C-alpha cells in the first residue's frame, strides 16, 4: 500500500510499504477514509522527538471503514464506519478502568524505552516515535487498530467523514483541556493557541458554559475562526503584552482558567522568546515555554492551568509562580475513549461541528505538500486532511 513515511528532518515521502495485517485476535485493519495532520507531528518533522526511524509511517488522527477483523473482535464488523482515538487503550488495565486511556499499561510494545526517561510508560500511539509504541501511523491506505472493541467508535450515518474525523485527536484533546477547568457560571477561560486543539478547547469551553473565552494567537485568520466558531474574544500577542491585556480585560483578576494548547514550539515575542529560541536552535533543550509562562502569570490566584501542549523534557519551569499563586495544574495526553461518544453526540445534536478545521483536503499523494502548507501556516491552513 502507499503511505506517508518520515525519512528525516523535514523529509516526508509517499512510498510503497507492506500492508498491515491482523496480528492479535482483537485487532482490526481499517481502510483509512480520512487522516489529519496534527500540530504535534511538527515536532517530528522538525526533529525534536527522538526514536523516529527512517521509513516510519506517521499520522495519528483518522477515521475509516473496517476492512478485516480478528477472531476475538465482537462489536466491530467489516464495513463499519468508525473513528479511532490516537492513543491505544486495552480497556482492562487500572488506567483504562479509571478512564485515563493515554496511560494504558498494556499497549506500548516499547515500554522499556520510555521507562528510563519517564519512570513509567504511556499507552502506545499510532505513527508517533518508537518510544510511544512504534505503531505504523494512519497516513496510509490501511492501518492496524489493536483492541478494536475498545478503540473503534461507530460513526452515526448522519455525520460525514470530516465531522467525525476530529473526534480522534484534536477535539478530545481540546475538550479534555476544557473539562480540566471545571467550568462554572461566570468563568473566564483563556486559551493560548488557535490551532486545531486550541480552537476545539475554546469551543468546548463555551459549550461547557464559560461566560467568556479569550483566544490568543498571532495569525489573523485563526483569530477570526476563534471569534466565529467559539464566540471568543481575541488577543494578538504580537501587538500587546498578553499578561497585562488579560488582567486589564478581567478586572485585574486574570482568567479563572488558562489552557496551554501550544506546547513546546510556542512562538512568542521579546526576551523570553529569544532565550527559548536560541536554546532550542542550539538544541540545548527541546521546549520553548513562553505560552506556559504567560499563562501562569496571567491566571487568577487559585485558578486552573490546563496544559495540553506536547512537551519534551522542558528544563525551565517556574514552579514557584504556580505554588505562590495556588494554581491547580492539570495535564495529560488525551484520554480520547472517555470523550468520543459524547463528542459524536454533540455533532449529531448540532451543538458543535469541528469539520471547519479541515481547511485543506488532499489526496495522500500530495500529503508532503499538505505538511508544507501546515508547517508554514500558508493559505490559511489549520489542518490538512488526506484521503488515501
Amino acid at each position, binding site marked *: 500500500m502507499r503511505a506517508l513515511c518520515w525519512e528525516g528532518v523535514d523529509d516526508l515521502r509517499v512510498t510503497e510499504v507492506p500492508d498491515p*495485517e*491482523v496480528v492479535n485476535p482483537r485487532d482490526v485493519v481499517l481502510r483509512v477514509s480520512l487522516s489529519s495532520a496534527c500540530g504535534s507531528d511538527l515536532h517530528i518533522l522538525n*526533529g525534536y522527538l*527522538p526514536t523516529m526511524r527512517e521509513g516510519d509511517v506517521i499520522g495519528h488522527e483518522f477515521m475509516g471503514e473496517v476492512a478485516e477483523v480478528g477472531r*476475538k473482535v465482537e462489536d466491530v464488523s467489516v464495513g463499519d464506519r468508525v473513528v479511532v482515538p490516537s492513543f491505544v487503550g486495552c480497556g482492562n488495565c487500572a488506567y483504562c478502568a479509571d478512564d485515563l486511556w493515554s496511560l494504558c499499561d498494556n499497549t506500548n510494545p516499547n515500554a522499556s524505552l520510555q521507562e*528510563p526517561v519517564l519512570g513509567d510508560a504511556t499507552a502506545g500511539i499510532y505513527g508517533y516515535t518508537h518510544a510511544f509504541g*512504534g505503531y505504523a501511523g494512519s497516513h496510509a491506505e490501511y492501518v492496524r487498530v489493536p483492541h478494536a472493541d475498545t478503540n473503534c467508535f461507530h460513526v452515526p450515518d448522519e455525520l460525514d467523514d470530516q465531522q467525525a474525523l476530529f473526534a480522534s485527536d484534536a477535539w478530545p484533546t481540546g475538550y479534555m483541556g476544557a473539562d480540566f477547568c471545571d467550568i462554572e457560571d461566570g468563568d473566564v477561560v483563556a486559551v493560548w493557541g488557535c490551532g486545531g486543539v486550541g480552537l476545539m478547547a475554546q469551543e468546548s469551553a463555551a459549550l461547557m458554559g464559560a461566560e467568556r473565552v479569550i483566544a490568543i494567537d498571532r495569525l489573523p485568520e485563526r483569530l477570526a475562526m476563534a471569534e466565529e466558531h467559539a464566540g471568543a474574544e481575541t488577543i494578538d500577542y504580537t501587538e500587546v503584552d498578553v499578561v497585562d491585556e488579560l488582567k486589564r480585560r478581567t478586572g485585574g483578576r486574570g482568567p479563572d482558567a488558562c489552557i496551554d494548547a501550544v506546547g513546546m514550539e510556542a512562538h512568542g515575542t521579546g526576551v523570553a522568546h529569544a532565550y527559548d529560541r536560541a536554546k532550542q536552535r542550539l*538544541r540545548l533543550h527541546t521546549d520553548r515555554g513562553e505560552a506556559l509562562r504567560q499563562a501562569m502569570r496571567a491566571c487568577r490566584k487559585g485558578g486552573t492551568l490546563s496544559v495540553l501542549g506536547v512537551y519534551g523534557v522542558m528544563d525551565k519551569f517556574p514552579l514557584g509562580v504556580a505554588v505562590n499563586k495556588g494554581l491547580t495544574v492539570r495535564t495529560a495526553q488525551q484520554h480520547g475513549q472517555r470523550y468520543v461518544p459524547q463528542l459524536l453526540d454533540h455533532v449529531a445534536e448540532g451543538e458543535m461541528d469541528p469539520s471547519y478545521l479541515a481547511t485543506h483536503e488532499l489526496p495522500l499523494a500530495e500529503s508532503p505538500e499538505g505538511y508544507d502548507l501546515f508547517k508554514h501556516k500558508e493559505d490559511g491552513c489549520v489542518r490538512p486532511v488526506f484521503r488515501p
Partner: protein
Amino acid sequence: MTAEHGAESVGTGSNETGKQGLSGARLAVAVVGGALVAAGVRRRSAGGAALAAAGGWLLYRSVRGRGSATERAGAPPDAQTVERAVTVRASADDLYERWRDPDELDRLLAGFADVRAAGEDRQRWTVAEPLGRPVAWNARITEDSPGEALRWESEPGATVPNEWSVRFADAPGDQGTEVTLRIRFDPPGGSVGDAAMSVFGVVPEVLVGEALRRCRSLAEAGETPTLDGNPSGRGRGDRL
C-alpha cells in the same frame, strides 16, 4: 490490504498466547542501548541527550552490569540480583497459576528462553545464545506456595547457575496483586549483567521488566502488545 495478506496470515503471529515473533529481535533491546547512544550523540539535542541517557543506561547495563543499576532497579544491594514489581488487576491465585504452568512461563519469556515441562517440578530451559549456540539446563521448583510464591533453581551443571523467584501480595485497596520477580545469577567470577547478557541476550532489567509486563498484559488484556507485521518503509515487522 490485498489478498496475499488475507485470512491465511491471520493469527500466525498471534500474541494472544504471549508468543512474540522475535526472530532476530532477541538482541534488539540490548542493541538498542548502543543505537540510542549513537543517535543521541549524533543529534546533539536535548532530546538526543535524554535519548543518550536512556540508551546509555541500557548500554551501561549491558556492558557492566554491576552495582548502581541493581540499586536503580530497586533490588537489594546484591550485585547478583535484579528485582522489579508490577501491579496486576488479577487475583494472586490466578497469577500464581500462570507462573506455575510451564507453558505460560514459556509465553512470558518468549524470545528470551524456551521453557518446557520436564516432570512434575522440573522444567527444561533452552536459550539460543547471542552468538547462536543453544544452551540448555534443567530447573527445579524449590519453593511452591500456592497463591504466594514460587521459586526455581537451575540444577547443578548449568553454564550460569540461576534462580528465579516470584512473589504475590495483595495490593492496597482493590488494585489487584503486586507481583515481584527476582532473578539471581551466580556467574563464576562474573557479574549479573554479564551473565544475563551472555545467556539471555538482554540486560537483566529488561528481561525482568518484559516478563512482568507480559504477565500483566496477558492477565488483564488477553494479549501482549506487538509490532509483528508492522509496516514501514523498511519492510514488515519492527522492534525499533
